[in-house]
């Protein structure tokens, strides 16, 4: 009997081996290498001559904490997350309710329309959005102008650049979240709505007491992955504001890491930035799940 079990176990490991190997090679190894780099001063001198690498312990981390630019990047990223996550989830939920409740024949069309931005290339989208944001000829200022609002230099004004990036990110990403919400909505039993309707519950009451609680697990999941994704803000400012401008108003933590690593070639320091971001994201995610558990109790 035991021999058979061991045989089964071996077969199990054998079947899992390809996946485990891939994970080890492409996930564990880079993470370990990244951490190893973050405690060295690997930089352009080390690229030229590998003997010029030193173990520096926590020096990169100490420098990081005393670097105003890092704090600025972290503040910008938090601003983006705090503004972007609720906006994305709100729009996604509204869209999900819309495409679930609407006329049956049009549902797939709207789902496709809302999902299209998710699968388009960001660089191509950025070109279009740069036109939309153009201070003089852009559609957005044109519409605002009709309402008597003075032109806004969206991407050039430090106060407006981040909101402009948030708007683009929401538009680009809400379709994905919407699809998850749609799946969550379909999992809520129709009988509950029928029963509520028989009891004379209004549309708002049905939403508040059936839809929202029914969506709770979905909402937690969506919130966690959106927060994780938005903490990694990179491509939007990289292409829209030529790498974090104006005056570093859209410099995100990942963008800061990229610049330190691939512009100044302070690879060790950049790896330290990556690890700090990892701990921040982990802490925020744990906090979210803890809050969720308390709410369930």
């Amino acid at each position: 009997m035991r021999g058979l079990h061991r045989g089964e176990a071996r077969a199990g490991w054998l079947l899992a081996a390809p996946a485990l190997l891939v994970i080890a090679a492409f996930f564990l190894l880079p993470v370990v290498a990244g951490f190893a780099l973050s405690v060295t001063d690997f930089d352009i001198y080390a690229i030229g001559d590998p003997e010029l690498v030193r173990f520096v312990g926590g020096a990169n981390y100490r420098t990081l904490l005393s670097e105003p630019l890092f704090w600025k990047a972290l503040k910008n990223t938090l601003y983006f997350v705090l503004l972007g996550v609720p906006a994305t989830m709100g729009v996604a939920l509204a869209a999900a309710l819309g495409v679930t409740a609407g006329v049956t024949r049009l549902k797939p069309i709207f789902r496709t329309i809302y999902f299209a931005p998710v699968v388009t290339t960001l660089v191509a989208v950025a070109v279009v959005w740069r036109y939309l944001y153009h201070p003089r000829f852009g559609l957005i200022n044109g519409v605002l102008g009709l309402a008597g609002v003075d032109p806004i230099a969206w991407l050039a004004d430090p106060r407006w650049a981040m909101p402009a990036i948030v708007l683009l990110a929401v538009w680009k990403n809400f379709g994905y979240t919407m699809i998850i919400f749609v799946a969550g909505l379909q999992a809520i039993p129709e009988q509950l709505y029928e029963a509520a309707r028989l009891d004379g519950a209004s549309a708002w009451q049905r939403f508040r007491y059936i839809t929202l609680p029914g969506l709770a697990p979905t909402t937690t999941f969506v919130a966690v992955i959106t927060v994780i994704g938005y903490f990694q803000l990179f491509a939007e400012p990289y292409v829209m504001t030529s790498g974090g401008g104006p005056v570093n108003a859209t410099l995100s933590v990942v963008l800061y890491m990229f610049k330190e690593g691939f512009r100044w070639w302070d690879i060790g320091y950049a790896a330290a930035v990556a690890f700090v971001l990892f701990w921040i994201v982990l802490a925020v995610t744990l906090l979210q799940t803890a809050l969720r558990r308390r709410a369930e109790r």
Partner: protein
Amino acid sequence: MSRGRLRLLAVLAAFAAGCGAGPRSQEAVRLWGLGREGEVVDELLEPFRAEHPGLEVEVQQIPFTAAHEKLLTALIGDAAPDLAQVGNTWIPEFVVLDAVEPLDPWLERSSVIRREDYFGGVWETNIVDGRLYGVPWYVDTRVVFYRTDLLAAAGCEPFPRTWQGWLECMRRVKALPGGERFAILLPTDEWAQPVVLGLQQGATLLTEDGSRAAFSSPEFARAFDFYLQIFDERLAPALSTAQIGNVYQQFAEGRFAMYITGPWNMGEFRRRLPASALAVWGTAPLPAPGDDWPGVSLAGGASLVIFKSSARKAAAWQVVEYLSRPEVQLEFYRLSGDLPARVSPWSDPLLADDPQVAAFFTQLGRVQPMPRVAEWEQIATRIFERAEEAIQGSATNQQVLAGLDRDVDRFLAKRRWVRARAEGS
């Protein structure tokens, strides 16, 4: 985090693959040209190809914004071309990587490239620790572009030659009637202006061996005070390039009367200014703090370097020599508007009879290289980032310069260690 990291690795891999892939004939000399120069150099090389039927030259055009990253990635990935156009401030970095060929032995045997026929300050930029690593291809420096009508109205003619005269002129321009106007545009995200003023006061920026910062020196502090006075008196707007919006339109409307910028803007001004403003702009060499006009400006531009990994260095050197011929330099100016690095082409009427070009010729006689350390680009970026704190008034000048010294000393820590280690062994 892991996703971001993987994405970066993927980008790196793609860079390397992009550099290595594609048709690469064994015979051809591969040249990387950047931006606009990369476009015209192919045409420029046509006569060379006719002269050397057995020699193939393959030009690859690299966008300027991506050039620095691409070159470094290619070097690390062992996919460097035979020769390339590089910004002359990048050369110290390539020397650290041991990637570029010292050119002194080649120069000795050359009958085409003669050191005396180059602007001294520009030639200097190619020398790191006493060895020559590049040949200047075109030059770049900063002069004042100004509105001749506004300065005439303010009684500033001829263009001031001392800081004192310049400052008074700015005040008079500011006081001219006709709406909100600034005397000068000094974008707060550019390092060249405070650095150039510092050089004019005799500041060395770094200590002589490039191992420590020297921004708190009295020389640089004097220049920095002058730079900030211009903002404090609201003679210049505290705005970055992006915040200004369309510089050409603002200049045409007379929103500012002076602008310290480089040769590429001659073409831009001619292309982009409306007809009304085309006749009323001129250029002038920089004023000096004392009476030693013209004031020092920076020695920028691009050089041609040959990579150590190249198997066809002799052929690559032939290309460098060809592109350095005076008549080819002149043709290059005709095609691209880039100013020749050699002095002799400047006597051609095309350049000599152009009054807007004349200021550049005068200025190029007095230019200085930036400190030749691999960390310079990083230091330069930090200069304007720190200076902005002083412009916004969130720190005093002394605090800002002390902070700048601290940051730059940190950037240079590795350099100090590497040099101490080299001396020890």
